[in-house]
Structures are given as structure tokens and as C-alpha cells.
């Protein structure tokens, strides 16, 4: 049971490392997503930084069944468990494109869940079925120019007019905003009702009055298309309401939790990938007559990074285990997201440092990881919002 001198001096690296939440099926899935991402996506990562990734990625992933891993079979999904969504988030990092991973995650983990949870049968048939096939692309509209994490400040209005609703307002930082076929839109239907005044709509992006104003330039995530959208007298039928009128805030808050945790898994995997590439570099690059990995300070940097990554991974996995077992651990999810995003940013920065001048150059791809990583401390709830949620959970 305990270590022996032999095992300490020559550790057995082949020992079982798989975490208990994963089964052999998950590992097989992992393998197939990794192959796909490595062979079909990664070779284009550089090019897609300039052009954004093509819509055909969705169709291909739909063909392979990767867009509905944890979605019900009756809508074309694979009927897998929550962990299978974690596996996708982890392995898609092999595409070497944070923007692509984000575009896919918004589609599968942010926009699709509320339709499945609150949508009518017609809405699921109309949007979820083709979305799982990758034939229709989804986006989610929460943030506005004047309201981000403070959802209460949302101004986009939907006003009842006979059998229709008329929507006016604007949304910004919308991932997939240019390519999407439909948006899950958060609007205010009753300005005097506070949290009870929000309603979700499924608005087709080709509806008259939906204006894709501009593609936003960003620090990183260049492969993703991020939009500023305007809604000018957009008329939709009452059947476009998603869920219950007045319950939009609760519908959207509910789904953010599962997504945050899947996001955390992706961040940990991204940090691991960056770490491994840099470890490889440290074996190849020589300075003062030896591999730079042989210098003690560099070796210790790796030890420190590996420890941070492992701890973030364990937080994420065990929290996923709670979630999958029916708990709703908002506190622990927030902690996992907070720590995982920090770890990713710190690891990316340390990896640039180990690469030296090469790390600063575009061709090595590390500076891209660094730029892409930075969004994670802001998107899906900033560090500060996470800390607020955690603090409040203790009644502080």
C-alpha cells in the first residue's frame, strides 16, 4: 500500500490515473474527440485566427455526434451524462483555438440548455434538433452595452402587441452573434417587476429589425465572432417566448451554473495543454550548455504549475460529481470557476516566461493561449462576481 524505496526511486508512471467520475466509455469518447480536434481542427487554428472558424465545424461536429453528447436521444443527442460534456470541453482544447472552443460551448452549453429545459415541443423540434445536427447555430443574448453581470440593469424591451411581441434594444459581446440562426434573448417585459419582469425569447436572426452591427475586435479569442447586435421593432409571435413570461431571469441564472463548471473543466485542460507544450519546449531548448528544463528554477516552475493545475482539476471533478448526483453546489461551482480561470492565466503567463522571446512571438502559439485565457476571468461571471456569490453563500 505505502510506497517502497523502489517505487519512490523509480515511480510507476503507468499507474491508474483516471479519475473515478469517468468510465471507459468516457475515455473512448475522449480519444475520439481528441483525434478529431487534433486532425481536423488544429491544422487550421492559425488560419481561423484571421478568418474566424467556419460554420462547417458545427456541421462536422454534428455528424460526429459531438454537439449533443449530454442531450436527450429523442432530439438527436447521445443521451450521455453530464461528465460527457466535461470531456468535450477538455478535449476540444486540442483544437488549439480558444475562440473555436468558446463558439462551440456557447452553442451546446449556454444556448441549448434553456431551450431543452423550458422550451415547448415545437421550439425543441425547430431549434434543438437542427442545432444538435450542426445545421443551425445558436447564440445567447444577455449582456448589453450598459448591463453585464448586473442582469437587473437589462434594458432590451419586449412589448406585447396583440398576438405578437415587439422587441427593441441592443446586446453586445455576443459569441456566435454573426453566424447564429437564432438567439436566446433576455428581455424585460415588465420594467416594474424587478427580477420577475424578465422574459426569454427565441428570435430568428433573420427576422426583420435584427441588425448585426459590427464584429468586435478583441484581445484574444480571434477565431470567434463576437457581435454587437441591435433589435429595432423586431416583431415575433407569442410562440417565440421561451419558458414562462416573467421568469426569464430565473431561467437564465439556472443554466449558468452547469455551464460555468463545464467551462472550468475546459480551462484546466487548456492549462494542462499549455503546460505540456512548454515542457516539451524546455526539453528541446538549450541554454548555457543544457536543456533549460534542467535548470532548477525552471524545473520548480513546472512543479508549481503542475500542482496548481491538478488542484483546480480536482475541485472541478469533485464539484461535477456533486452536480451529477443532484446537488446544486453554486458555491463550489463558483470556486472552481474562479480558481480554474486564475490557474489558466497564471500558467499561460509562466509558459510565456519559460519560452522567453519565443513566447512573445505569434508563431509559437503561446502568446495566443495567454490572450485567449484572459477572457476566462471576465466571461461567464467575472472573478469579482464569483467572489460575491461565494461570499453571499456564507451569508457574508
Amino acid at each position, binding site marked *: 500500500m505505502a510506497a*517502497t524505496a523502489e517505487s519512490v526511486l523509480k515511480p510507476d508512471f503507468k499507474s491508474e490515473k483516471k479519475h473515478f467520475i469517468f468510465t471507459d466509455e468516457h475515455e473512448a469518447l475522449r480519444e475520439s474527440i481528441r483525434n478529431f480536434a487534433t486532425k481536423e481542427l488544429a491544422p487550421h487554428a492559425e488560419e481561423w485566427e484571421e478568418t474566424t472558424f467556419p460554420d462547417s465545424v458545427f456541421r462536422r461536429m454534428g455528424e460526429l455526434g459531438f454537439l449533443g453528447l449530454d442531450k436527450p436521444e429523442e432530439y438527436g443527442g447521445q443521451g450521455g451524462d453530464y461528465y460527457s460534456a466535461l470531456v468535450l470541453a477538455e478535449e476540444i482544447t486540442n483544437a488549439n483555438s480558444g475562440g473555436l472552443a468558446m463558439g462551440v460551448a456557447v452553442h451546446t452549453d449556454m444556448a441549448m440548455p434553456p431551450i431543452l429545459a423550458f422550451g415547448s415541443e415545437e421550439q425543441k423540434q425547430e431549434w434543438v434538433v437542427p442545432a444538435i445536427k450542426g445545421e443551425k447555430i445558436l447564440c445567447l443574448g444577455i449582456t448589453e452595452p450598459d448591463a453585464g453581470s448586473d442582469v437587473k440593469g437589462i434594458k432590451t424591451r419586449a412589448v406585447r402587441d396583440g398576438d405578437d411581441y415587439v422587441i427593441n434594444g441592443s446586446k453586445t459581446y455576443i459569441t456566435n452573434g454573426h453566424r447564429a440562426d437564432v438567439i436566446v434573448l433576455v428581455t424585460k417585459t415588465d420594467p416594474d417587476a424587478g427580477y420577475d419582469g424578465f422574459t426569454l425569447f427565441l428570435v430568428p436572426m433573420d427576422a426583420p429589425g435584427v441588425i448585426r452591427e459590427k464584429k468586435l475586435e478583441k484581445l484574444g479569442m480571434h477565431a470567434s465572432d463576437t457581435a454587437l447586435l441591435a433589435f429595432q421593432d423586431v416583431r415575433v409571435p407569442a410562440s417565440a417566448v421561451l419558458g414562462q413570461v416573467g421568469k426569464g431571469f430565473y431561467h437564465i441564472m439556472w443554466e449558468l451554473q452547469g455551464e460555468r463548471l463545464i467551462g472550468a473543466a475546459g480551462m484546466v485542460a487548456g492549462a494542462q495543454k499549455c503546460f505540456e507544450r512548454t515542457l516539451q519546449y524546455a526539453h528541446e531548448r538549450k541554454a548555457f550548455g543544457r536543456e533549460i528544463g534542467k535548470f532548477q528554477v525552471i524545473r520548480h516552475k513546472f512543479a508549481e504549475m503542475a500542482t496548481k493545475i491538478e488542484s483546480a482539476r480536482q475541485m472541478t471533478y469533485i464539484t461535477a460529481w456533486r452536480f451529477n448526483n443532484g446537488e446544486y453546489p453554486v458555491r463550489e461551482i463558483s470556486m472552481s470557476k474562479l480558481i480554474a480561470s486564475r490557474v489558466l492565466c497564471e500558467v499561460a503567463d509562466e509558459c510565456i516566461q519559460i519560452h522567453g522571446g519565443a513566447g512573445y512571438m505569434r508563431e509559437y502559439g503561446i502568446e495566443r493561449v495567454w490572450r485567449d485565457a484572459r477572457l476566462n476571468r471576465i466571461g461567464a461571471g467575472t472573478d469579482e462576481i464569483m467572489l460575491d456569490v461565494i461570499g453571499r453563500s*456564507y451569508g457574508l
Partner: protein
Amino acid sequence: MIQPPFSEEHEELRSSIRGFIDRELAPHSQQWEDAKWFPDEVFPKLAAQGLLGLKYPTELGGQGGDYLHEAVMCEEMARIGSGGTAAGIGAHVNIATPPIWKFGTDEQKQAYLVPAIRGEKIGALGITEPGAGSDVAGLRTSAERVDGGWVLNGEKTYITNGVRAHFIVTAAKTTPEGGHHGISFFIVERGEGVTSAKLEKLGWHASDTATIAYQDVFVPEEALLGELHGGFKLIMANFQWERLAMALGAVGAMRMAWERTAQFARERQAFGRPLSGHQVIRHKLADLAASAYQARCVTYDALRRFVAGEEPLREVTMAKLLTQRACFELMDACLQIHGGAGYMREVWVERAARDARLGPIGGGSDEIMREILGRILEAPPAP
């Protein structure tokens, strides 16, 4: 939901240990710290509750449990509120007696382990020397063959229970070169030629950490523990558990310190509202809670793998490295939140911060942990 690898059974044990510590030990911690000594009677008291033999077999007087039961104890000892007392108990339970359990003869088990589990004999582990700490190959204490036994000469230092211990599980060179293939262990009873000198320390005041000198100390043949020249294996065999025990201790200490500090922040008023009503304090506490959860998750995973027999050198090393630093940082932040009060001896956190500072040094320093991990990472698993 109980976090793996623990189950309902362990939570019951946890609440019983907690009750015992809160009732019998914690009320005295201040006094023991001031006296720079906790009384030896603590050992029989713990033994009466079965707490010195949780993982040891019933035929030796233990509880017949396993490392998971012991893990609960490691975590809950933080509640004593005295790192030095927890260290003395921990040295006995987690480092001095396990080598006898694993490598001892039946006679040695009867002579030392059985009374140790009863709290009648107190043990210490003697490895570190003035000239050799983490680098165990540099040990100088020697054991020379004589008729009917061995004669030991040398000096050990930083030995927890070094003054009170009835027996010291001692590492000594049995070849002139020493090193990995020339070290052996002996169970040395306190007696002629064995002298202890207590050391003053930054923290861990209730612990009798000492330097022990061996001057021509004769021990009989049967004092040899494990194989002759096989001492390095014995050292290594318990490192993983010792480090896990430290990680668990930090997890327990972080939880308790956080709860107490959050309570303080709710009660203490500043600028017309509780401290916790100030956003920076609320965020600080939230951050510390996340760090405590992170430490718990990485430690519990390593523990789970250890108990399953995976020999998780990598995971245990990471858990030790991460938790000890995180625990000290958390204590320092808790001290800061307490303000001036935190600097005063009468408030628990002053002591907790001092006690926690040993974590990144003891049981293999942070730097040694990073060396081990660095070596592991140089040999990644075959694809």
C-alpha cells in the same frame, strides 16, 4: 453530500473525535502553549478513546480501522488549537509507530507498539541531524557492531517528542559510507547516554521539539528495526503517509480558521457595519474559502488514491506542496482581518499563523516537493 473518499461511517467518527477534542483538549491549549509543554497524560486520554490506534489491528490493541479513519483524526486535530500538541500526537501516531507496525518483529510490536497504542509509551522518530535534513543520505549518526548489539554515537535534531519520548526510532549509518544502502533503524530506549535538549521555536510551542545526543549508547541485537542496511526503504515507506497527514492537518486547520474568522468578521463593527459588510473583506473571505476547498479537493484525491493502493507519489507531493503554503497564507490573511487583535497572543490566530509557518518546511520543504515533482515531470508516462 459527503465528499469521497469519506462515507457516513467516517463522519460519525469525525463528530466523536471533534466532541472529545473540544471537551478534553481544546480548553487547555492556551495553558499548554504558555507552559511550552502539553502533559504526557494526553496520550493515555487519547488511548482510552481508541484514538492512538485507529489504523492498527485489534490484536495489537488498535481499532482495526484503516488510513481513512486515521485521516479523520489528522484533520480534526486542528481543533485542539495548538499546533505543538497536534504535532506531538501526530509524531507518535503517524511517524514513530508506523515503521514498527510495518517492519517490526512480533517482539518489537509487543514491546513498543502495544504500549504506544495504549498511550503508556511515547514514541519519536529520529532522522534529521544538524548536518542533514531533507538530504537523508548525508546522515552521520553511526551504529557500530559490538558483542551482543550496537553502539550508537551522534546527534539528532528537530525531533518532535524529543524530550518526552520513551523510545526513539533512530536512523544510523551501519556502514562507514552510509547513504542509501548503508542506513539502518534502531529502536532506542531512553537511558544511559541519551540526552535531550529542548529547542525554542517560532511556533509549535507546546511541542517539546529537541536535539537528542547519543553518546556511546548500547542497544541490543533486537533493537534493529527492519533489515540491516535497509533503512532508506523504511524512511521512504512512510513519507507518503506523513505528507498526506500534514496535508490533512492543513485542510482541517484551514476550515477551522476560516470559520472563526468569518464569525469574527460578522461580529466586529467598523464604520457603522460589520467587517463582513465591507466588500474587500467579503471578497477576501470568499477567496480564502475557495483556497480551502482547493486544498481539500487535491488532498482528498491523493488520499483516495493512496488508500486504493495506487502509490500516488505525484498526487501526494502536490497535496503537501499546495496545502502547506495555502494554509500559511490563509492564516496570515485571517490575522490581517483580525487587525490589531490578530497580533495579540490572547487571540488564537497569532498562534495559528506561527504554527502554520512550519508547514512549508517540515516533512520535506516546499523546495524538496518541487524537486520531486520536477523529477517526475522529466519522465512523463509512456504514450
